[in-house]
Structures are given as structure tokens and as C-alpha cells.
């Protein structure tokens, strides 16, 4: 695992190649688009995706919490992929072991579980954007309302295309920080990538295996 630091509007953020962001001042771990339960959803419909992907995602999540000793976990949307299934029971078992950690979910379009479920899982659900300090958290960057504050979002599953001489092309998931908005990489491994365009003054970090490589355009 590799860490890189960025500073946005006075906030110091640690980016991890494990696809999470740690916000020291708030003692909070931020991530987006985990899509937990996605393999189970596919399997229930007869599509045999190996469940090990899911297991590894869970390990990465709880490892990260432990590593940063985070008090709060903020999921900026799409924590779960779809309706409930047995895979979520495994999440719940872990959740109990980490009952001291506060979980917050800024609802995303995939978060369709019944209200009661989140309550039982001890996850605080925020139906709209949330402001922490001078930062706004919103799942879909399009819903960014508070134009004065910097926003952090998910939803996009940002990927960056790196072109080199001799027509080389490579694509990686990335952290992206524009002038007013930032995007977190999709946390779940069984998720796709959407290639984003980056501006000259933007910051972008490609996740290449276990390294974070700053990309300048």
C-alpha cells in the first residue's frame, strides 16, 4: 500500500492505493462505490462470479479502518449494489466487530435497501448532500448544490487514460481533484471504469497495482 498527501482548501487528505481517503482533522475514512453484495446479486441470478472478490473488498475495507484507526467512515454512495442477499450477512458480522466505528452513508442510486436494514446495521443514512467543515459530500457530482464549497463525490468510477509515445495507452482507476470538485475511485473491485478528462491545473493520482502515481496532463 502506498500513501500520498493532497491539500484542498486547507484540508489535508491522505490518499491510499487501497482506494480510500483519510481525513486526519476529522479522523474520518472516506470512500465511494463499494458495491458490496454485487457478486451475490449476480450469483443469485445464476451468473457465477467468484465470491472471493467480495471477500477481498471487505478485508480491504476493514483493514483500512484499522490501519488509520478511523473513528468515522463516510461512504459517499453505493455502499451496497442492490437488494439484500446473504453476502450482506458477512458484512454485518464484520460490522459488529467494528461497532466502535461510526458508519455514515450519503445515499447513492444503488442504495435501495429498506430503512430498517441500515438502522440494524448501525449505519447513519443521509438522503441528501452532507457538509463537513468546508467540504460537501454528494454521491453524484451532478447534484453538487453548494457552489461555494469544494465537493467530494463518487458515482463516476473515475479512470484515467495515460498515453505515451509510440501510441501506448493504459487505463487505471484514479483519485481526481478538480478546481471545485473531487472524485473518489470506486472502492469495489468488481466495478467498471469511466475515463475522465483532466484539466491542466487538476490533480490526478492513478492507482497502479499498489502505487499511487501522480498524473499530470
Amino acid at each position, binding site marked *: 500500500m502506498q500513501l500520498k498527501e493532497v491539500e484542498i482548501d486547507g484540508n489535508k487528505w491522505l490518499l491510499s492505493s487501497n482506494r480510500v481517503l483519510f481525513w486526519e482533522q476529522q479522523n474520518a475514512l472516506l470512500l465511494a462505490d463499494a458495491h458490496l453484495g454485487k457478486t451475490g446479486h449476480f*450469483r443469485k441470478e445464476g451468473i457465477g*462470479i467468484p465470491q472471493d472478490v467480495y471477500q*477481498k473488498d471487505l478485508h480491504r475495507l476493514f483493514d483500512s479502518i484499522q490501519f488509520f484507526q478511523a473513528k468515522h467512515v463516510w461512504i459517499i454512495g453505493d455502499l451496497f449494489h442492490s437488494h439484500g442477499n446473504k453476502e450482506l450477512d458477512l458484512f454485518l458480522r464484520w460490522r459488529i466487530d467494528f461497532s466502535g466505528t461510526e458508519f455514515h452513508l450519503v445515499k447513492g442510486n444503488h442504495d435501495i435497501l429498506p430503512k430498517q436494514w441500515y438502522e440494524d446495521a448501525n449505519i447513519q443514512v443521509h438522503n441528501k448532500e452532507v457538509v463537513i467543515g468546508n467540504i460537501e459530500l454528494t454521491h453524484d457530482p451532478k447534484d453538487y448544490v453548494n457552489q461555494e464549497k469544494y465537493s467530494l463525490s463518487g458515482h463516476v468510477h473515475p479512470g484515467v487514460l*495515460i498515453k*505515451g509515445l509510440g501510441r501506448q495507452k493504459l487505463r487505471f482507476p484514479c483519485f481526481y481533484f478538480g478546481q471545485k470538485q473531487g472524485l473518489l475511485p470506486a472502492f469495489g473491485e468488481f466495478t467498471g471504469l469511466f475515463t475522465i478528462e483532466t484539466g491542466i491545473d487538476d490533480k490526478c493520482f492513478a492507482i497502479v497495482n499498489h502505487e499511487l502515481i501522480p498524473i499530470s496532463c
Partner: protein
Amino acid sequence: MNFKYSKGYQVVEQWLQKKGWQPFAFQYETWESMWTGKHGLVNAPTGCGKTFSVFLGAVIQYINEHPNDWQTRTHKELYLLWVTPLRALAKDIVRAMEEAVEEIGLPWKIAMRNGDTETAERQKQKKNPPQVLVITPESLHLLIAQKKHLTFFEGTACVAVDEWHELIGSKRGVQTELAISHLVHNSKRSLLVWGISATIGNLNEAAEVLLHPVRNQPWKLIRAELDKRIEIISIIPDEIETYPWAGHLGIKLAEQLIPIIESSRTALLFINTRSMSEIWYQKILELAPQLAGAMALHHGSIEKELRVWVEEALHQEVLKLVVCTASLDLGVDFRPVDTVIQVGSPKGVSRFLQRAGRSGHQPGAISKIFFLPTHSLELMEAAALKSALSYQHIEAKQPLQLCFDVLLQYLCTLATGDGFEAEDAFREIQNTFCFQEISQEEWQELLHLITKGGNSLQAYDEFRKVDIEDKKYIIKSRRIALRHRMNIGTIVSDALLKVKTIQGKYLGTIEEWFVSKLEPGTVFTLAGRNLELVGMKDMTAIVKPSKSKKSLVPSWMGGRMPLTANLGILLRQTLNLVREQAFENWPTELQALKYLFEIQQDLSHIPQKDELLIEYIVTKDGYHLFVHPFEGRLVHEAMAAIVAYRISLIQPITFSIAMNDYSFELLSDQPLPIDEIDLYSLFSTNQLLLDIQKSVNAAEMAKRKFRDIAVIGGLIFQGFPGEQKKARHLQSSASLLFQVFQEYEPNNVLLRQAYQEVFDQQMEEQRLRQALDRIQSSEIILKKPTKLTPFSFPVKVDGLNRENLSSERLEDRVKRMQEQLKK
């Protein structure tokens, strides 16, 4: 009893006499063989009454079974099942059969069934079976997916597979094999299996594959010795000097086509890709506006009604020209067609012959085909094709082995219908050519996959597809069964969107990735019309007609075919002519290329058949290594990967690789130590397999193969073409699935198959070995031209599938790419 005296033959002979027809020897031979209970394969070209060989054989057999009441008895069962690969074909066949039985006085019902058949009609067929059913392999599998389907086939006496040469070597062929084995295995009477095939290089093997389930019974290969003369006329650009060196559309030559079209009754213009066919349609309309109304466009993305109309109009001779793609490729008996024009390389000898065969349908007539090159070097192909005709060089079609994706799909098809018992199904499957060598372990693995779904966290798993009930494997979930039925088939298309007008009129389909690049207001061309994109709604592109002169032409990914080995050999021999023979003796096509050969010789070299030309050229893009083996794109892809890998062992380096049918290119941002490399060792067959496996490309190539496999094997839900009602939250891309399986279930049978397909088909390992052996015994000529040569230019401009091969650590590579950009 003598066959000649059988009631059936007499009835049919009487009918033929009345029409003034004389049966061909091969037809008679087929009828007689069927009469003696033999299976078989008929080899006959299109337009020579091949349909009537097997069809009338069945009619004769039926009459002989009911000699006294064949005219009056009501037959309630399906007697002849006629499998045909293309829908466009079905209509013609039904028409011909209907005409025949009516005139013979046989009260048979002939029906067809394919993706276009309405549900009501399907229901009717089930309740009241026709005596002949013309069906596609996909629809046949859909029938097998129905409960109690075996009663439908209880009275079936014969199954015929038409155009077997089109099916063998493809997964649709495997599907056909499985269906035939199923019918043979479950038939209560003796079921005759017959195939009909055009000439291919391995006819005997083709027969063995089709007849594998009945291999222990007598069968016969029947060849129609009909001589069909073919004449190739190349359209040669007036000013070859200005004709593009590399892949353009040949549209500059369109003008020369107009008089050819004008002087024919009906012409077919074959274009290799759908997008090019749109462009040609527009261009010809522009050059010859008088053809408006008398010309039409036919390709796979055009709305069904329009396609059907075109096929119908061809019959009625109201069309002067149809611009088409492979969608009109198969042996449709378009009698009125008298001119065939091929634009661009047909990529293989047999396809070219078949297309040529579309014209001059009467036995004995000369088939004429015009060849229009789309770039200069393609003229060489025309010369090569001409020599192919004189030597009868026709490609073999290799049958596929152990296609587990098709088998997985088939097992689910059986489970959707009546369900299956493992041992019984295993016997049935082992009886096909494709799966004759399936092992017990592989079989158990497949059963495990459909019931347990591979790696799981048992306590937290709810995998469900096929249930086991009283030893029967059966799909009980209606949702899963429905989804499976919608997914039956082996033709995988890219994600398609419907195109509709604001009023809601459906115009056709277009690939998703193309639309995603368009902004509302952009004008594009579909079905020969210019359309302006208004917006997207529910995965439908809403358009309105546009008068704009400028428009984009959508490109469809499908339909790019690699050159066959055969044509490659011919090409190399053709090049030899240039060096060996005096100019006067060159074929006209090569004479036209004189100027180009001179430049090539000046800048570099013209390789002879026992030479391999390598060109090392430095441009602003970097350091290019062009290699010209003329072996076809597939072999080049593998060869390029291996050569790149072997160079990368000498120094850490990253290559971008491109290839076309003639050459491949390795492009690097660092200079190559070209003078220090032993060039022969790059092409050595030593450690070939090991090196293939190590060249990163295998994974890249397997990833591309995996898309089709994942769809066929049921991992990706495709939905109906153009129908975007995909299951909610069940979408994923093939490349993502590949990545996940590669990491978490590397032993998965579908993943293994992707690699196997790469080795067998993509790398064509055997062909690759032969090519490398050839290079070892030839002279490698290294040239360092100062600029791009006529041979190297095409691959640089339109080399397909650019890919990378690198021996650097991924992290280092990204950093270096970054560094270079900063400079």
C-alpha cells in the same frame, strides 16, 4: 426392389418430366442413397438444384412409406427438419418447396421458424406441426428449450443441414452438432442425417463432423461434378499514382461502376463492412441519381422489414442494385442477379468464389465478378485470386473442438426444457465431433459450474441456476429460464441501440459506443438516410431526417475478417512474378501497380517467396520495425507478440504492435539494437509455446476472445438485439469479468477456453509454426528506408488492434510515459 420402380421416384420423375427437367446425376444419387437408408453430404454449388437433392429425396421417401394414400392422408407430424444458417435463405427455400409439393400434389405444409417468427405462428406450429420446418440453429435450440419438445420430433424422418460449409468451423456449427446428436439420440425411428455444402478444402472431414452421431451407419459423400466457370474482372484506377496506398474505401473508383450497373439487370455490390456500405450507397446515389428507387441497401443493422422488402424486391426484379454486406452472402437463389461486384479484399478464396457464384445462376453459365480494390496493394490480391481459380486452391474449414461455452449454454437449454440426467446427456454430447474427447473431469466441472457457480463463500452464497431434482438437472426459476431463452445463440453483437424517429418509427440499430460519441444535433447516416440526433431516451436514439450534406457514418465493429493462409501463399507467389517475369507477362493488375513496385524497390526491396522483408524506419512517432510475412492478420498478431517479447528480453522495452493481412509493425519510443540482433533467432520455433505464454499478448488476446465466450456461456446477458431491457443491476463488461476471473478463479473453464481459442484459432499455432519454419529457411532481408514504403504504409495507417507488449514494470512504465510527455 429397384429404386427406379419405387412409387416415390415415379411420382417425382413424372413431375420433373412435366416441367421439362432432367435430374442431375448427383440428385439422383442422393435420392437413391436416401432410399437405401444412408446418411450423407451433398457437395454442390449454389443454383444447381442442391435443395432438390435432399428435399425431393425426403418427398420420395414419404411417398414410398405411404404409396397408396400419400395424396389424401393427413400427416400430423414433422417429417423433414431443414436447418439453414441464414434467415434470408429460409424464405427462398420455403417458396421453392411449396411450389414443388403443390405441383406434385403432395398435401404438405412447409413452414419456417427463426428469430423473426411471431409468437402466434410458433404456437400454431406446436399445435399443428408442418411437415417441413425450415429453421436456424438458434431457433432449433429454442425448440429444445421447450418442455416436451421431443414429441414434436417423434415422426421426423430426416434432418437436413443446408450450407454446412458456412456452419462448420463456427460455434453455430457446434450448436448444430449438438442439436443433431440430441435428435439422433432421442429418435424412435431411424433418423436420416444429410448435409449440403459448397466446396471447401476438407469436404470429407466436413461430412465426418456432421455425421459423427451416426458414424457407425453407412453414409455417402456425393459430389456434383458441375463445372462452373468464373471470370474475374478487376477495376483498375486510371491514375494509379494518385490512388491511396492505404485503406480507403475505393470510393474514388465508384464512377467506373456506374456503366457496369447500368448495363446489368440486377447487380449486387458486396462491401466488407456495414459502415462502408452506407458510404457506398450515398456515393452511388450522388453519382447516379437516376438509380434512386431502383437501388437498396442491405446489412445486418437495418430494420428487419426493410431487409425483407429488399430480398423480396430482388426476386421481383424491381431493383437494379443492392449494396450489401455479408448479410446477403449465403446461397440465396437470386436468379435475376447477373452482376456481382466485390469491393475490397474478400479475404479468402472460397468466399470470393461463393460471391461470384451469385451471378449467372443457370448451370453452364459463366459467373462474372468485378473486383474493385480499396487500396493499391489489394490489386495484388485480385491477381492472386485469379491464380487461385486456375489451381483450385480452396480453404479448409477447421471444425472446432471442446467449445465449453456452447456446451454450458446447451446444458442450460436442456435444463430449461425437460431437464436432463447426467449420464444420458453425457452420452449424447460425447457423440458429437466437437465433444468426443471431453473428459469425465471436464464434464463434472461443467455440472458443478451450472449448479454451484464456482468459487463461493458457502455460508454466504445463494447461487442458483440449475437445480437437481430426482437426479434430473433442471432450471426451476422462471426468471432464469426466461433470461436463458433470450440468450440462446452464439452470434455475439456489440451493445446495440435502437434508432427511432420522433414519431416512433423504427429505423434500425446502431452500436452503443458510436452513439456515446455523438452530441444532439450531430448528423449521421443509417440505412442510406441522413439523420440528426435529437436525443437519447430509454436507450433509444431519437432522430429526425436531416438535409445536411455532412454526416458521420457509424462504424460497426463486426465483420472484419482476416486473410486465409491460402490467399497468403498466393500473394507471396504473386510477388514473385514481379521479380521473375518480364513486365509483359504480369497480370494486368500487377502491371497497374508498376509505379508502386518501383517506389518500393527504390526505397527498399520487393521480397520474393523465399525471402522475408524487414524494414526499420525512424519517424517522429518513434522507431518502427515493419515485418512483411504476408501470412494474414491472425498469424501476424501472434508472430508480432513473440518477436516483440524476444526483443524485450534483450533490453527492457515497450512496443505498440499493429498488424494487417500483409505485415506487422512494432513501434517503440526507444531505438532498437537492430544490428546486434540475430534476426533468425527472433523467428525461431525453439521454446515457441513457452514464449507465446509469456508474451503478455496472450492475456490481451484472451480478453478479447472472452467477450463472446462470456456471452455464450451465460455470464453476460445480451438481451434481444436493439432491446435494452437489461436486467437491473446485472450489467458488467467482459473485460471486467475477465479481470475478476483471471485473478480469483484462474482455472475457470471459460477462461481456459479463451486461452485455448487464442492458441488454436487466434495464434493458429500450427500455422504460426509453419510460417516460422518457412522464415527459417528463407533469407531475411533487413532494409532501413529513409521514409515509409508502399508496403509499410498500410499497416501504419490502419493496422488493427493496436496493443502493447512490455517487459518493464507497470509502475515504471507509467512513470516513464509521464516523463516523456513532460519533455
